Structure formats: structure tokens, C-alpha cells
């Protein structure tokens, strides 16, 4: 305790040093005076008495020094002195400091942005109790790596027959419902969960409680915090009140914490109901009790003391047992165990690759930035060599000087880091504003969390030290004799290629890599924008409803949609209107494996995407009808008819005349009545997929859409102008109908460019930053070299060299550096390009245009960066240059 008190006093002592110094000087003075008086009294002369007093004190200055060392903390004091000296030096070279901090700031900002994605998608545990013991179980088939959901009976078997877990819960990951509360009814997404769900997650409610074990079928609902806030005004007494959910009355029993959206942290679900409600809320579920219907996600809590391999081993023996008991259905099935809340093995591969590619790129940017800083520090060291030499000559140690230089670069690093964090705050917000065109609710927001802060801080400290160490080492070793004479003291005799040249070569080489990758992604965006999507994006308005969520029967749904189509088509300014289930380019959708009825039995049926269509859909969307007829007035009881696209004809019918052919998929048969043009069905980059349009009226009852129904309106003018009119038509038909996904087709297609645009803008930004930083670096090195060679250039000119030849001399030097760098960077880029290949649209990773354009482009930029120093060299006045030394 006493030591701590003393330490605090000593730290305080650092800040009142001047006053304490004066006070102690007074005390010493009074001591000497008292002692002198004593001496005089005992008969000495005044001078002699004072001399004796000083001797006994051991010297006034020495006493002051001893006192000072006790008063403060000497090591901390010298550190603070380095700090303030560093700050002063940096403030003096304001321009250089700004460039250095800006460079590192851009580099750290880029890294922090990418790391915030890593933190969000790879590192962040789910917001549940003790995430490390929560596992996610999946089923596999025939030794596949990954993986599928659970059938309900299999979940029950695992639940009843394993001992490794203290709890196992299952849930249907996504069900839609329309919910009451304040305002118009809203369509929201939630999950149907087993009653032990929140217990297994160890997730305490904010308000109320979770489900009790006897409430598997209860009409009860737990709200997400967002929904509670949005529709129920954060009512703290909400537990026990009721709400309409898709036409049924549910009792609200609790509110989940705001941090919780779903175990996987990607789906943004907002309510939870007991699993017994699933068949009613999701009528297209099929046979929920079948051993072949994979529809449940499963999470399990490890018992204390049981390890994950032990649990996996137990599941393995269970799988063998189940395969024997249910040999029809469970043969070849297995289980995999993964950490809950992380991306499934299926998705994590792509994500890791994407983040690894970005990670390499941002580290390149940071290295280029750091090389700039090292170069600046070298230049400063050169400017201070005399100062350093004098201090060395006066007895300062090299270590002391190095420490001081390192403090400066550390300050630059930390300053840059702070700027970088500010930049990443902005960039993560901008990235979070982008959204995927998926019709299901995803939460992909990224933010700067503590992991990002820590990473950025460590990175900026490393950066400061790493790029400061070489300049500090060089600066503390001037050739004394040269320095004191005022000559260049850092140049080592016999060293042809300086460290600074190496740095600039590395910088340019790295920007070659960066530019090649950037070029690839820009080309990819260009090629993506040239992709023919196969339907019109102009003058189309889309708007979705889901009558099923309002307890409509299939007949009523079909009637509603028909009326809506006719009313919308009759609006002024509307050319035509049609109904489908959801718009293409929504990243996924319904698909089934198809084969020709009566045709040869093929082992794996090619899958085709399914879209529902009312009469006129193809015409409204501008998809050409190539053969056959359109839907007209089919009825639900007639045999089902379908229109297929050309790829369907090629891939599944092997090119034979499709009209009248009967195909079967997903246990349903369709007679083909027409052929339509191809469209991009799921994503822009896809290879064209087989598509089958089925009659809306014939399928609303037997296989309703999970995602609701979309009215597509083709307008003569701006589609946004009729939006309000269409809304009004819907509400005239049913005032309580929830409307969602209202946008123009142009907006929808625009979001489909999400991936190529995201990649191009990220890589484009980073490539541009890298290029600018590298050219600043080259410029800096060349100007420095010219300023160092002023005298040499002066002599050359005095001996008759022309300004033009001097200019060429400098340019040639810069060009040689650039060429060396390009010859190093180009092969590296060639090798790295393969990494990017899976993210490119319609171009090869070794795109000839990119790889042939980057080197000359970079050479031109390099020449431009060298031009100003070259001009300066050429304008050297020989007389002045020779006189300065």
C-alpha cells in the first residue's frame, strides 16, 4: 500500500517538476544558510563556513539530482521526454508527418475494415450463454462432407439416445407470418423451436420468460427485441398480452435480448413459437414426421466434462444403429458436429477464400504505406545526421538515439492507427448499408468491435516499430567524421543499392500485384454489366403479398391474386400486369430434379428452378415466348401444365420437341405447353439454368409459395409513379394485407450486382490507394536522390551536360527501379490471380487485357512520378550547386 502511495506521488511528481524543483532549491539554500551560520558561530570565516557546508552536503547540484530521482520516476521521465521530443519533431516536419499518418491511416483503415468482416463472420461467437459448449449438429448422406438439416424423427432419436449432451433443441429456421400490433399488419420472419430451445441456448429473456417444457404446442410467442420496439413500443408489461399471428391469437410470453437474431448470426429472425405451430404456419412443410423430410436445424449443449470428439464418436455409433433399424431411409446417413454460430462448412470455404484474398490485398496496401513511412524516416534521418553525430560525439549512446527515433515512428504508427479506425468506422457503415437481393431476412452488418480495435492497435504498433527500425538503426550510425564536416554520413562506402531503393522496388512490385487484381475485378464488373439477364429491368414494378399468412384458403388466394392482376392491369399508365411467386435474381428459390416421364431412367435428374406464373407473365417481363402457348384459364383440378426455357429443353429433353411432353419433378407431373427464352435465374454469374414456369392457379393449393406472391406491373412510364396506385388496389381488396419487397425491377436487378460491385469497389479502392501511395513513394525517393546529387549534377552541367540529358539521367534511374519491380511483381500477380478466379464474372483469372495493360500503365505512372524531380535536376544552376558546399 505504502509503495503504491509513493508511486502515485512519484507519477504526480512528473507534472509539477518545475515547482518542486524551485521548492527544493529553496530548501537546499536554507540548509546551506543554517549550516553556514553554525560555522560562523564556531569561529570560521563566512566563506570558509559556506565551503564546509557545501562539502558536507555533497554538492548542491548532486543533492538536487538525488532528490529529483526520488521525486519522480526516472525511466518514465525519460520516456516522456522522448515522447514530447518526438511530438515536437513530428510537428516540425508537418508535411512529412501528415503524409506518413495518412499513409498508415489508409493502410490500417483498409485492414480494420476487412478484419471487421473476419471478426463478424469467423470469430464472433453467437450471443448465447457459454458459446464454447454449444454445438450445431448436421446430417450427412453417403459420406458427403456437409450437410443437411434433420428430419423430426431423427432429431427425436438423437435426443433420446445420446448421453453426451445436457440438452438438444431443434428448430425450423425460417417461417413467415403476418403480425399485428401497432400500424398496418407486417410480414415478419421467425423460427419454430422446440420448447427447450432457449434453455439449451442459455438465453435469458429481457422481459417475461421462455417456453416451458409442456408448451410444445402452445399458442405462445417470444418476440425479438427489434420487433418489440417497432410494433409494441417496447411495452415493459407486454408479457401475457395477445397478438394476431397469421390470423391466430398468440400469447406473448417473453422478449429475447436485442443481440440475438438467430444462432447462425446470419438470419435476422424476429419471433419464436413452439414447434407444434410449424405445420400451421408453414403449410408447404409436407409430412413433418417423415424420416426423409430434412427441415430442422439442431443445436446441442455439451455436458460438462464431455469433449466434442467424444460426442462425435457417440453420434457415429448411433448413426450405425439407426442405419440398421431404418435401412430404407437412414442407410448411409451420418452426423457432423460443428461449433454453433459459425458459418457452416459449406459456406465457410467461400467466405474464407474471399476474406483471405481481401486480407492479402489490404496487407499489401499497408506494406506499401509502411514503405512510404520508412522512406520518409530515412529522409529525415539524413537531414538530422549532423545533429545525431554531435549528440553521439557528446556521449549519447546509440541505444538512446534509436529509442528516440523509434518513439517517433511509433507515434506515426499509433496516429495512423487512430486515423485508420476513424476510416473503418465510416467504411463498415457504408458496407453494412449494402444489402443482398435475397428475399429472406439477412443480417450482414459489420461493425468495429473490440477485436477490431485490438487488432488495429497491435497492427499499428507493429507497423510503427517495423518501419522505424531500419531508419533508426541507420540514423544512429552516422560516419562521425563525415557528418561533422557536413558531408553525407549515411551513405556506406561501397553500397550500390540503397535500402531506400529496395523499399521503392518492393512498393512498386506490390502495386503491380494490387493493380492486376484490381484490374481483374473491374473487368469482371464490366463483363457482369454486359450479362444478358433475359428479362426487362426497365419500366417494371414489383410488389409482394402473402395471403396465406392472412389465413386465406388456396381458392381465395387464387381469386385475390387474379383480381389484383386485373385491377393492376386496368390502372392508367400500366401496359400489363402478372403474378409470379418471386422475381428472378433473388439468389435462390424453389428447385426440383426433373426427368421425362416414360423416358430413360437417369441416375441424377438435372435440377430446374420453378417459378409460378399467371397468364401474361412472360410478356410482362419481356421474356420471349419461342414456341407453344401461354397459360390461359387452367383450373386447379386439371392436369398441370408448364412452360420451360430453352436450357430446360437442351438439358432435360435433350433437344427434342418439347410441346406436349410430360415431365416429372418433385413428385409432380407437368405437360409442357410452351417454350420461353433463357433468363438468369438465381445469380448473375451463374451458368444458365433450366427453368420451369408452372401455372399459379394450379399450384397455389398443392405447393404454395414459401415467399409469398409478387405482382409484376409493366408500365409505360416511370414505374415508381404507379406504386401508390397498386398499393391502393391491394388495400381495397383487403385493408389488412401486409405488403413487402416493393421496388422497381431496376432496383432489384441493381442489388443483384451486389457481389461484382462489392468486389470491384473494394479492390478498386484498395488498388487506387496502393497506386497513389506507391507513386508518392517513388516521387519521394527520386526527389531525395536528386537533392543528394545536386553537386554531382552541378559538376556534370559545368562540364557541358545539357539539361535534357540530366533529365533523362533521373528518369532512367526511376525507370530502372520500376522495371525491376514490374519483373518481380508481375509473376507474383499471375500466381495470385488464381485465388480470385471463383469471384470473377465472365473473365479468366489470367485475363490477357489486364495482365498486358498493367505494366505499361504503371510505367507511365512511375515516369510521371519521376518527372518533377527530373525537371528539378535539369534546372540545377551549376554555379549555385558548386558553391553551396
Amino acid at each position, binding site marked *: 500500500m505504502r509503495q503504491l502511495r509513493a508511486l502515485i506521488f512519484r507519477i504526480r511528481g512528473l507534472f509539477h517538476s518545475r515547482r518542486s524543483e524551485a521548492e527544493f532549491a529553496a530548501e537546499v539554500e*536554507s540548509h546551506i544558510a*543554517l549550516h553556514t551560520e553554525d560555522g560562523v558561530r564556531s569561529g570560521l570565516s563566512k566563506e570558509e563556513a559556506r565551503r564546509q557546508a557545501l562539502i558536507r552536503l555533497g554538492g548542491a547540484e548532486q543533492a538536487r539530482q538525488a532528490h529529483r530521482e526520488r521525486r519522480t520516476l526516472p525511466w518514465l521521465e525519460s520516456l516522456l521526454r522522448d515522447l514530447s521530443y518526438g511530438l515536437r519533431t513530428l510537428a516540425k516536419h508537418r508535411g512529412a508527418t501528415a503524409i506518413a499518418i495518412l499513409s498508415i491511416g489508409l493502410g490500417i483503415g483498409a485492414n480494420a475494415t476487412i478484419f471487421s468482416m473476419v471478426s463478424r463472420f469467423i470469430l464472433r461467437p453467437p450471443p448465447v450463454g457459454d458459446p464454447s459448449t454449444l454445438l450445431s449438429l448436421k446430417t450427412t448422406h453417403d459420406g458427403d462432407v456437409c450437410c443437411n438439416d434433420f428430419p423430426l424423427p431423427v432429431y427425436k432419436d438423437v435426443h433420446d439416445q445420446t448421453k453426451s449432451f445436457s440438452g438438444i433443441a431443434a428448430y425450423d429456421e425460417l417461417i413467415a407470418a403476418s403480425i399485428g400490433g401497432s400500424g398496418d399488419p407486417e410480414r415478419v420472419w421467425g423460427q419454430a423451436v422446440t420448447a427447450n430451445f432457449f434453455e439449451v441456448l442459455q438465453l435469458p429473456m429481457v422481459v417475461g420468460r421462455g417456453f416451458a417444457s409442456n408448451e410444445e404446442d402452445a399458442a405462445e410467442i417470444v418476440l425479438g427485441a427489434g420487433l418489440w420496439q417497432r410494433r409494441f413500443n417496447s411495452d415493459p408489461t407486454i408479457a401475457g398480452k395477445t397478438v394476431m399471428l397469421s390470423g391466430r391469437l398468440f400469447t406473448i410470453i417473453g422478449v429475447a435480448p436485442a443481440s440475438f437474431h438467430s444462432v447462425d448470426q446470419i438470419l435476422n429472425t424476429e419471433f419464436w413459437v413452439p414447434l407444434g405451430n410449424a405445420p400451421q404456419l408453414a403449410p408447404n412443410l409436407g409430412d413433418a414426421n417423415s424420416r426423409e423430410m430434412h427441415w430442422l436445424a439442431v443445436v446441442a449443449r455439451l455436458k460438462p466434462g464431455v469433449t466434442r470428439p467424444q460426442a462425435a464418436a457417440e453420434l457415429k455409433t448411433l448413426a450405425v444403429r439407426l442405419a440398421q433399424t431404418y435401412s430404407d431411409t437412414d442407410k448411409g446417413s451420418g452426423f457432423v458436429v460443428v461449433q454453433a454460430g459459425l458459418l457452416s462448412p459449406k459456406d465457410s470455404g467461400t467466405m474464407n477464400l474471399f476474406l483471405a484474398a481481401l486480407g492479402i490485398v489490404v496487407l499489401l496496401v499497408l506494406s506499401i504505406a509502411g514503405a512510404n513511412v520508412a522512406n520518409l524516416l530515412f529522409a529525415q534521418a539524413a537531414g538530422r545526421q549532423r545533429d545525431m553525430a554531435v549528440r553521439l560525439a557528446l556521449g549519447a549512446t546509440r541505444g538512446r538515439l534509436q529509442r528516440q527515433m523509434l518513439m517517433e515512428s511509433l507515434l506515426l504508427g499509433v496516429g495512423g492507427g487512430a486515423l485508420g479506425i476513424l476510416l473503418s468506422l465510416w467504411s463498415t457503415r457504408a458496407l453494412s448499408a449494402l444489402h443482398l437481393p435475397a428475399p429472406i431476412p439477412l443480417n450482414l452488418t459489420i461493425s468495429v468491435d473490440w477485436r477490431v480495435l485490438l487488432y488495429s492497435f497491435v497492427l499499428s504498433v507493429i507497423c510503427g516499430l517495423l518501419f522505424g527500425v531500419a531508419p533508426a538503426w541507420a540514423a544512429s550510425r552516422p560516419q562521425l567524421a563525415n557528418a561533422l564536416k557536413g558531408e553525407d554520413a549515411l551513405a556506406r562506402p561501397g553500397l550500390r543499392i540503397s535500402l531506400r531503393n529496395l523499399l521503392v522496388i518492393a512498393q512498386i512490385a506490390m502495386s503491380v500485384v494490387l493493380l492486376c487484381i484490381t484490374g481483374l475485378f473491374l473487368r469482371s464488373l464490366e463483363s457482369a454489366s454486359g450479362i444478358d439477364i433475359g428479362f426487362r429491368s426497365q419500366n417494371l414494378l414489383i410488389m409482394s403479398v402473402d395471403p396465406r399468412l392472412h389465413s386465406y384458403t388456396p381458392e381465395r388466394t387464387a381469386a385475390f391474386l387474379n383480381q389484383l392482376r386485373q385491377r393492376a392491369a386496368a390502372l392508367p399508365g400500366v401496359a400489363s400486369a402478372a403474378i409470379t411467386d418471386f422475381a428472378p435474381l433473388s439468389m435462390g428459390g424453389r428447385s426440383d430434379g426433373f426427368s421425362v416421364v416414360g423416358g430413360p431412367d437417369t441416375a441424377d435428374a438435372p435440377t430446374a428452378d420453378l417459378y409460378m406464373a399467371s397468364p401474361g407473365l412472360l410478356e410482362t417481363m419481356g421474356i420471349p415466348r419461342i414456341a407453344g402457348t401461354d397459360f390461359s384459364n387452367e383450373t386447379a383440378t386439371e392436369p398441370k401444365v408448364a412452360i420451360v426455357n430453352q436450357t430446360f429443353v437442351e438439358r432435360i429433353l435433350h433437344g427434342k420437341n418439347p410441346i406436349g411432353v410430360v415431365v416429372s419433378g418433385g413428385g409432380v407431373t407437368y405437360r409442357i405447353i410452351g417454350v420461353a427464352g433463357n433468363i438468369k435465374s438465381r445469380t448473375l454469374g451463374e451458368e444458365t439454368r433450366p427453368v420451369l414456369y408452372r401455372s399459379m392457379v394450379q399450384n397455389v393449393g398443392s405447393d404454395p409459395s414459401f415467399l409469398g406472391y409478387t405482382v409484376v406491373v409493366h408500365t409505360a412510364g416511370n414505374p415508381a409513379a404507379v406504386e401508390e396506385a397498386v398499393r391502393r388496389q391491394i388495400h381495397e381488396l383487403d385493408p389488412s394485407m401486409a405488403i413487402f419487397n416493393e421496388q422497381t425491377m431496376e432496383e432489384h436487378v441493381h442489388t443483384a450486382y451486389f457481389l461484382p460491385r462489392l468486389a470491384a469497389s473494394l479492390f478498386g479502392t484498395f488498388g487506387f490507394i496502393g497506386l497513389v501511395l506507391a507513386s508518392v513513394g517513388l516521387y519521394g525517393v527520386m526527389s531525395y536522390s536528386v537533392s543528394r546529387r545536386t553537386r554531382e549534377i552541378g559538376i556534370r552541367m559545368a562540364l557541358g551536360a545539357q539539361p535534357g540529358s540530366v533529365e533523362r539521367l533521373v528518369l532512367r534511374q526511376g525507370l530502372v527501379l520500376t522495371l525491376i519491380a514490374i519483373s518481380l511483381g508481375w509473376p507474383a500477380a499471375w500466381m495470385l490471380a488464381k485465388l480470385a478466379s471463383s469471384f470473377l464474372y465472365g473473365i479468366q483469372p489470367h485475363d490477357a487485357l489486364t495482365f498486358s495493360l498493367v505494366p505499361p500503365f504503371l510505367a507511365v505512372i512511375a515516369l510521371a512520378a519521376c518527372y518533377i524531380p527530373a525537371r528539378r535536376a535539369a534546372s540545377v544552376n551549376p554555379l549555385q550547386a558548386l558553391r553551396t558546399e
Partner: protein
Amino acid sequence: MGDKTDVWQGTLSLMVLRTLDSMGPQHGYGLARRIEQTSGDLLQLNYGTLYPALLKLEQEGFIRSSWGTSENNRKAKFYELTKAGHRQLKRAAAEWEQTTAILARFLTPAEEA
């Protein structure tokens, strides 16, 4: 004296505390002289080392200081014991007595044992 500061600091602190206890508030010079006198002039203090020792005691909260006037009308800084200082004096004195008693057993001729 310089190379045995640790031991010396400890004993010097004790001497300072004891002297302040018996004499009341005292300035640095007076304190030094008093310690020398008490030691029967066997100790010759380097006065320069006294002040860091005083500062340490003050930082630890055993003594406090204030400016005052000496008996012959000079401004001087006076030191006095705090409550914690009194307690520390008792504790340190007891420890010291024990140490010397133990050492004394080693150093006296063996006949008593």
C-alpha cells in the same frame, strides 16, 4: 556510504522517525545535526542523502512537511511525524530490536548457551 544505501536507507529512516518523535517538528539541517549528536558524533552524514530519504518518507505518508521559521529567523522546511509515522516507528523499532537481539546472540561469546 554510497554502496550500502539499502540498509542505510532503512536505518536512516528509522533514525529520522525516532528523532522527529523525540524532538517534534524539525528542519532538515537540524535533523541531520541531531542524528549526528545522538550517535555521539560516530556517524558522519552526507547531508545530500538525507533529503531523498525524507522525500521517500513523505511519499509513503509517514511524515509531512511545511514551511516555517527557524529559531534564528530563517525560512526553513519543517518535517513532522504523521499518525502513520508513529505507527511505523513503533513497528520498525520493534523489528530492529528483534534483529539486533538475534544478531547479539550470534556475536556474544558462547558461554551462555
